[in-house]
Every structure is written in structure tokens, then in C-alpha cells.
């Protein structure tokens, strides 16, 4: 299969807000259950180990009209919760047996309780994660939270999950994460070969497909991309930061690349890259997952930076590793975490003379011309001064 064929499939999955692929997976066996989760990270291994399908819910994008959802939110709240509510009310999630709301901000936090009120028959859990990074403090707390989550899932599925089931799931996800890392690495090395719009669609496919199928898809893509060639352009190399929750429309990603920037790292969909190293399978699985979270997870605004030195550390590392020439802070409008974090990150990269621009978007932003113009000017200035 060519990369174009694979991406075509991904695009169809991305556009399908009835989640047919996940529905089909569920329909294949009457005992199957589907657990939805929101950004930025949940321990998907637990869902997998319980024999269920984790389904990443990334809002409604720019294709879905929000009719009911706006009646639930004031104008000054971002768009992802309203389009997610719309998905629920419009019965597009009626096949979903449980919903997980990770600790990312007060909007998603409160959405967990709203979901309890609006959909009382669905299993709903708020996923608290540690902001204390010591193994015997935050680690133990998180292990116990995961145990409680697993108990809930076991009850829902009627099936006990053993440590070996968990280890197996960790292994499966380690493979998936390694493949994602590899594609990110290759994009950074030859960004003209792996446009970010493609990489993004590949990652999005992982939100709705069973992980094994997704890993096969990633392998196929890597094989296909190795034998294809695409022309190299004189683009500058930039990193996108701030887009970890509400996702930009695909057109926005394309616009940035069309305006003369190669995106060499980003913080779009993070669940498949959150844990940055393989999770060990030879120790207690809860301990392994907790330790990976504490010591090897991605840096986003939703996490506490323990020291001033930790602020922006991963961004600076990424700038170095990916030889980025600039940063584009692209955050959803009204996104407290991203927007509060941005001035600190901007200061940090300025200390290293890394230029940046900032703008806000919504998942249904339609006007790309200003963004193209801003990114284009940014690219030109980088080329001119570097």
C-alpha cells in the first residue's frame, strides 16, 4: 500500500464522527466494551488489558455543527467540551460504555461531573494523576488510582485482569509508542517526506482503531515512506507548542507547512507519546506505569514543573534535538493551561535566542489566511536572519 492509500484510510477515520470503525469492533462480539477518553493522557493499557477498546475523543473538529453544546457553555470557554457534549447528545457516542476525563484543566474536570449528570448510565471516571513526582508519594497515589480505575473496568467488563494481562498490554503499547517515536524521528530527519498533516492523521487513527491494527498501519506507512520520494523545499524548521488538548483543524496544520515551515516536533495528540520510554514489563505493572509517568512522561502545561529549571526543559531539548529554528505557540482560545504556560516558555526560549510567534485557534477555525500570513512572515524572518 502506498502512503497515499494509508493516509486516505486515516482521513476517512478522522472524518467519521460516528466512529464506525470502533462501532464495528464492538459489534463483532457482544461482550465487547468501548471506553472513551479525552486528552491528554490516560493509562490506556488498563482498558486494553480489560479487553476493551480505548477510544480517544478529540472533540468535534471543524466538520460538526454544534447545535446543543453551545447551550452548555459560556462564550469564554474553549470549544472542545461543547463539541464533546454535542457528540454525546447527538448519540454519536451511544456505543461508548465508559468515559474517562483526565486531570488536564478545570473544564475537562468539570465535564466529568457533567457527564455523570447527563449520561447516568455510562461509567464515568475522573483520572487524577500525580503532581508530586516521588515514587513513594505521588507514585503510590497514582498506583492506587489506577487500581481503582481497573476495578471499575473489571466490574464493567465482568472480567478479572491479571498482572500478566497488564504486562501484555504494556508490551503492545510499548510497540505502538516506539513506532510513533520512529515516525516522529523520521519526520524530523526528512520532514519533506512525512508532512505533518500525514503524521497527524496517522496519530489520529490510533484514537479509534485497536492498538494492534494501528501498529500494523504505522509499520506499513514506514515501509511505504522509505521507498517514496518527495521534493525537498526550502522551509524553516519549527516546533508547535500548546495544541495538546483541543486540536486545530487539519487545514491549520497544512497552512503552516504551506507557508514555509516544516513542523519538526509538536504536542498534538499526546497519549501515544506521553510515556517517552518503554515501560518495563518485568516489574509490577502498576509500579511500572506509575514510574514511567513520574520520570519519563511528556511535559505539558497540565503538569507541575517542580523547579524553575524544569520549565521549558523538554521544549529546549526538543529544539536542540530537532534542530528547530523557531517555535509556534498555537493554543486554543480560552485554554488556561496553554495560555498561562506560554509566557514562561516564551521567556525560556528567548533566553536561548529562539524566535517564536503566537496565535490562538479553535477546532473549527475557518480563516486560515491570517495564520498563513503570520507563519509565512515568521518563516521568512527565520530564513533571513539565521
Amino acid at each position: 500500500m502506498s502512503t497515499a492509500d494509508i493516509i486516505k484510510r486515516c482521513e476517512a477515520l478522522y472524518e467519521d464522527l460516528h466512529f464506525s470503525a470502533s462501532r464495528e469492533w464492538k459489534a463483532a462480539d457482544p461482550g465487547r466494551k468501548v471506553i472513551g477518553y479525552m486528552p491528554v493522557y490516560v493509562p490506556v493499557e488498563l482498558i486494553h488489558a480489560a479487553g476493551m477498546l480505548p477510544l480517544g475523543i478529540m472533540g468535534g473538529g471543524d466538520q460538526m455543527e454544534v447545535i446543543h453544546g453551545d447551550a452548555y457553555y459560556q462564550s469564554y470557554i474553549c470549544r472542545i467540551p461543547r463539541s464533546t457534549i454535542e457528540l454525546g447528545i447527538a448519540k454519536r457516542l451511544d456505543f461508548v460504555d465508559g468515559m474517562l476525563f483526565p486531570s488536564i484543566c478545570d473544564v475537562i474536570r468539570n465535564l466529568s461531573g457533567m457527564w455523570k449528570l447527563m449520561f447516568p448510565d455510562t461509567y464515568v471516571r475522573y483520572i487524577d494523576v500525580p503532581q508530586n513526582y516521588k515514587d513513594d508519594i505521588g507514585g503510590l497515589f497514582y498506583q492506587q488510582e489506577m487500581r481503582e480505575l481497573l476495578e471499575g473496568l473489571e466490574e464493567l467488563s465482568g472480567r478479572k485482569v491479571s498482572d500478566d494481562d497488564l504486562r501484555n498490554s504494556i508490551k503492545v503499547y510499548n510497540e505502538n509508542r516506539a513506532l510513533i517515536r520512529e515516525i516522529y524521528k523520521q519526520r524530523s530527519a526528512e520532514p519533506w517526506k512525512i508532512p505533518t498533516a500525514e503524521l497527524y492523521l496517522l496519530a489520529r487513527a490510533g484514537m479509534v482503531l485497536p492498538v494492534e491494527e494501528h501498529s500494523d498501519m504505522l509499520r506499513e506507512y514506514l515501509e511505504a515512506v522509505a521507498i517514496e520520494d518527495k521534493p525537498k523545499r526550502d522551509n524553516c524548521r519549527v516546533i508547535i507548542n500548546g495544541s495538546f488538548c483541543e486540536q486545530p483543524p487539519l487545514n491549520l496544520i497544512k497552512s503552516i507547512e504551506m507557508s514555509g515551515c516544516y513542523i519538526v516536533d509538536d504536542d498534538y495528540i499526546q497519549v501515544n507519546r506521553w510515556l517517552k520510554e518503554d515501560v518495563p514489563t518485568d516489574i509490577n505493572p502498576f509500579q511500572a506505569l506509575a514510574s514511567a509517568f513520574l520520570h519519563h512522561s511528556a511535559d505539558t502545561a497540565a503538569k507541575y514543573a517542580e523547579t524553575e529549571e524544569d520549565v521549558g526543559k523538554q521544549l529546549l531539548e526538543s529544539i536542540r534535538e530537532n534542530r528547530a529554528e523557531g517555535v509556534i505557540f498555537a493554543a486554543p482560545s480560552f485554554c488556561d493551561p496553554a495560555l498561562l504556560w506560554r509566557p514562561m516558555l516564551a521567556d525560556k526560549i528567548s533566553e536561548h535566542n529562539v524566535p517564536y510567534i503566537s496565535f490562538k485557534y479553535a477546532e473549527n477555525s475557518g480563516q486560515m489566511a491570517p495564520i498563513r500570513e503570520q507563519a509565512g512572515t515568521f518563516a521568512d524572518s527565520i530564513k533571513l536572519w539565521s
Partner: protein
Amino acid sequence: MSNQAQTEVIKEPSMIMQKELIASNYDALTSSGETGKKVVSTFVPGNLNELIRCFDLVNNLPEINAINNGMRKKSGGMIMDAEKSGHSEDVCTYVKSDIGMMSQGNIAPNGKPMPRPDVLLLSYTGCYTFMKWFELLRHEYHCPTLMLQVPYQGDGKITRNMVEYVVKQLKEVVIPGLEEVSGVKFDIDRLREMMKRSAQAEDDLVWVLESAKHKPSPIDAYFGAVYYMGPIFTAFRGTQQAVDYYKVLRKEIQARIDKGQGPITPEGEQTDQRYRLVVEGPPNWTSFREFWKLFYDEGAVVVASTYSKVGGLYDQGFRHSPDNPLESLAEYCLGCYTNNNMPQRVDLIEQYMNEYEADGFLTNSIKSCNSFAAGELLMMREIEKRTGKPGAFIETDLVDPRYFSHANVKNRLESYFQMIEQRRGGSKPIAA
């Protein structure tokens, strides 16, 4: 001012005491350079005032500074300064007011400069923004930061795991950290003593808030309550001064009940109480008096509010307990209003609507505050459904004057009161 008794407004002793207490904390802060006292900055909800006092630290609460700046109409300029220096117009205005205050010399209400904090105690309870706020302050001050993560009651209950986690952080992070900054050894008996006093003050505070069940209500449980909350939610919980203040306050309110009197507003006693309301959400501070006036002029009295529970749900039974001081502090932090999940918040408001025999439920939705605001429209519909009483929704901001539209709020409130009248089956009486 037809609804108010035309008497001269006399300040009651509790009002003077309250003012003096808050001022004394500012004096303690601004004189810390001379006294050698160390300063801790921390947040109101779930604050650890008793513990802080065990280390002889002076407690600085940036939210209170923002409120002060809001009420003195200084916050608008501060927010604009912060926005000019790169802070987004979309984020919490308390944060921007604080940052703008720093850039304008960090002047306390007593006209003297505030000290730099020696430590930031980030008690992360009920609001995500707190975390980034103190990261921003640390970015400025480069001082030590102690993080106390308080898990959210996602399932509407406090679990063993949550309590153990908080206690462990207290023992292994917060207490050793405060010992180091202050040079004072932790003495658990000192903590117990303070918690005993906390509970005494809390008993009286609950009595005060519940006095609104009387008809007429002797207090306004929103606009008036923000003054009552002052000492206990800030730097005085655990002190004898707080115990004394609430005793005096209680006595005064008892006297008002005995005489069948209403609350004291900035323009005198409120005699007209046609509408008993429950209010959700913080008030607007930049036009606080004008905002309150829109209520008492129309004969509306607030009988219960959720904002008066941000520093603890004492009316639901919680008391600081000297028997298990650290567990008790943990339960306190875990139990604050904004750390409750949405179904709990709806249940609480429904309870207030019934117990306080309210005529309606009003939400003051705050642009700044996702912790409160996200989900409030659903809450309002749930309350209406459960109680059959009408709800209303207004939108303002805490300390950003650009988001307080007097005309809009006035129109909204007036039509709301008419709606309450209609639901009662009569038309609105012409104001006396």
C-alpha cells in the same frame, strides 16, 4: 433608596474588628523586613493557615490582594499591564492583577510595599490555575515552592487514598519545607491548639451563615458573607482573634434576629426582602457595591451562596479536629467547594434552595474562573428541574472592570425578579 431604613449607617463592632484584622495582616506583611518574619504566599481554598502559623510565618494571599485591588478600582490597570507584557486576555484576571501589581511596585493597601515571599505554598485545591499562577510567581521571585496536590473528588467522595496522599505530602514535603524556610521546629501540639480554636470559630461561622434561614434574614449570605468569611478564610483561622470575632458577630446577628431586622448594607438596613435567593459563583469586585445595590434596591436578599464555601464546607459538618490534625487538614483541603464534583455541587445547591426556602437560584458566572464556571449552565437547569424554582444567569468578572456591565446586569436582574413574581402567580408589586 426607598427600600432601606433611612437611618445613618452605624458600623457594628464586628465590622470594625474585621477591618482591623485584615489590616493587621497587611501590616504584618509590610513590616516583615523590620520584624524579621518570614512570608509565605498561599491560596485561599484549602489553605493551611494553622500549619503556617505553627512556623511563625506571615500569610500572604494573592487572591485577597487582587480583591483589594479590585475594590479599590486599581485592578483594571494592573490587568492591562500584565496583558501588555504578554499574558493572554483569556486567562484568570486574579493572576494578571497579581502580576500587574508586582510590576507597579507591589504596594499593599496600607501604601507600603509588599515583601517578596520567602516560600510559595502551592496548595493546589479546586483550581487548576493555581498551579500555573505560582509557577509564574516562582519565575519572578526564584523562591522555593512547596506543592501540595489535593486530589479532586471526581466520584463525589473523599477516599482513603486521597487522604493518605495529602497527609504524606504534608509530612514529607510541606512540613519539612516550612521548617527549613522558617527555622522553626514543627510542634504538633501547637497545631492541635490552633485547630481547637479553628473549630470554635467554625461553629460560630456556621451559626451565622445558617441564620439566613430566618425570615427576614438577618444577613446577606453572599455580599455580606464575603466580609464574614474574611478572617477565617485568610490569615486568622486558628487564632483567638478569629474566635473572638465570630463570637461578636454572632451576638450582633442574634440581636438582629431578636429585633426582626434585616442585613446591614452599605446604605443601611435592608428591610425589604421580597426575594430570597441562592447564589452560585464569586461576586464581581470592581463594582461590588453597585452590584449589591442592584439586589437590595429590588428587595432581593441572598440566603445562601456557594462562594462562601470556597474556604470550607463547614455547614456540611466539617470541623478542624485536633485529634488527628494532619488527617483533618487533609480532609479540609479535599472538601472545599470547588473540589467537589458537579453532582455534589448541584445537590448542595438543591439542599440550600429547600432549607433556606429560596425563591430562586442565580448564577454569577465569572469569565475568569473555569473552576466555577464550566458547567454552571447545566447546574442551573438541573436546579430548576429539581426545585421548580426559576434560575437566572448573569456574566461578570472578578477584577476586570471591562466585564462588568451595570446596565446588562440590572436588566437581567429586573426581569428575573419579575419572573419570580409571575411564578408566584401574582404580578410584581410596585416598589414602596
